[in-house]
């Protein structure tokens, strides 16, 4: 038996449980519940109400990505700098929450933000008026940032750490002041890490349904929530499939776009 045949169970499984299901999504998206071909599912989701949900998802995911980049880049940069002898253990500390179930992390956030939660209790104890936090977009974005920040830090850190230090010395040698070292060498060379960080934050952020559900008790309604509703409570799988398909295409396009920005690299990604 040829050695390449060892891969056949794998190939079979991947086709059966990855490719075929995606074909089902396409099939359902273009049919009526009775199985006839239709484009109605798409024209339905082109209505303003649906587009608004899509827009909100993109908007909040962008806020979240921008915040993660803003907080995460300096974090990664400081960790990769040679200033901290124990940077290695600090990095582990950043990674650890990443492996905690995101529902648990969101649950922890809920505890802080609730009307009778830890933050409001503290504020009242200090004589400040309580604040409505659960249910606001701010709470959802905060929850997303809390969940996804490590996914931004790690790839950027990996790229910065792998960077040959003599490249920085070369820049100094050629006349860069410390600011120019960052803007002309460090930043451009870390683009692969930034790209993969953005991908890893934006993608789950734009498709989340549980974070918005738990931190807004339904007040903030995102694409993920809509898909969940169509499949679980409304049982309209055709429209649900068309929304899923549109989202999948959008995501593949944006990944393609990011790859364009940084063509020759798989980045300092997680795998």
């Amino acid at each position, binding site marked *: 038996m040829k*050695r*390449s045949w*060892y*891969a056949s*169970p*794998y190939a079979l499984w*991947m*086709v059966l*449980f*990855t*490719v*075929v*299901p*995606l074909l*089902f*999504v396409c099939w359902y998206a273009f049919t009526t519940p009775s199985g006839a071909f239709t484009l109605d599912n798409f024209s339905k989701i082109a209505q303003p109400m649906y587009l608004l949900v899509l827009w909100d998802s993109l908007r909040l995911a962008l806020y979240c990505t921008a915040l993660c980049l803003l*907080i995460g880049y300096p*974090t990664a940069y*400081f960790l990769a700098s040679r*200033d*901290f002898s124990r940077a290695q253990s*600090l990095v*582990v500390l*950043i*990674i650890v*929450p990443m*492996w*905690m*179930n995101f*529902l*648990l992390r*969101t*649950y*922890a956030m*809920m*505890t*802080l933000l*609730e009307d*009778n939660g*830890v933050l409001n*209790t503290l504020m009242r104890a200090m004589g400040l008026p309580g604040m409505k936090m659960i249910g606001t977009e701010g709470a959802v974005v905060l929850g997303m940032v*809390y969940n996804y*920040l490590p996914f931004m830090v*790690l790839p950027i850190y*990996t790229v910065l750490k792998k960077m040959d230090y003599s490249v920085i010395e070369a820049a100094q040698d050629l006349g860069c002041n410390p600011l120019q070292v960052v803007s002309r060498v460090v930043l451009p060379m870390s683009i692969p890490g930034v790209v993969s960080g953005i991908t890893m934050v934006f993608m*789950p952020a734009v*498709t989340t349904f*549980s974070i918005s559900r*738990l931190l807004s008790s339904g007040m903030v309604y995102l694409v993920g929530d809509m898909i*969940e509703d169509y*499949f*679980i409570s409304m049982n309209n*799988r055709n429209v649900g*499939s068309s929304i*899923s398909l549109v*989202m999948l295409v959008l*995501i*593949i396009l944006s990944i393609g776009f990011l790859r364009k920005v940084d063509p020759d690299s798989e980045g300092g990604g*997680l*795998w």
Partner: protein
Amino acid sequence: MVRTHRAKALKGAYLALVLAFLYIPIVIMIALSFNKSVSRAEWTGFTLDWYAKLFQSKQIMAALRVTLEVAVLATAVSTVIGTLGAIGMQAMNTGMANVLVNMSYLPMTTPDIVTGVSLMLMFVFTKVPMGKWTMLMAHIAFDTPYVLFSVMPKLRQMNPNLYEAALDLGCSPLQALYKVILPEISPGIVTGALLAFTMSLDDFVISYFTSNTDQNLAMIVYSAARRGVEPTMYALSTLMFVAIMALLLAVNRRSGLENI
């Protein structure tokens, strides 16, 4: 010199803030799992009642069983087919191997929710009853690429002449596989298996869409959370946190965390 000291202190303060942001919610949650009061607002004394309640809950114990069964089986199956897949792909011509590698990236790039609904559609269409068995199928599908991508680099590092040397010394191809190749790549296999186990334990979204009758722990957390905060869930969260940490330590021992 003074300036670099101050810069270093500022950097340290910044990192401390980021870590505080990441850990304070978790620490509070763990603390509250030992709080007598149901309220999050006050500390009324230490208790293990919530843990006791947790273990008395039939629903939660059933979910624990489902979670573990699915994770163990999914890990076993995905480790075998993932490892074989990596070995087979190495022997393939590049064109074919590229197709397979790209296919393996598919479940990693597809958003979980889309993977979840796509599998759900297939199970609904084929009228397979959705319970822990369908959940298992789905878990194998998303676990296997992790095994594949843990094993492939080890195979690539391996001296390509090793296999030929084994054949040259009289091994049959099958003997060469388990006497030479498998021992050589075993660190990758173990890492892949641990990774698969962790991913499986941790999964919520895909399980949520592929199982109706059986719930895993993450699904319990979700449905409980939708009803509002409940201290038993803090206890459950704390235990799951500890379990994942223990697993991660095991993985870390093998590979160093950043390599994951």
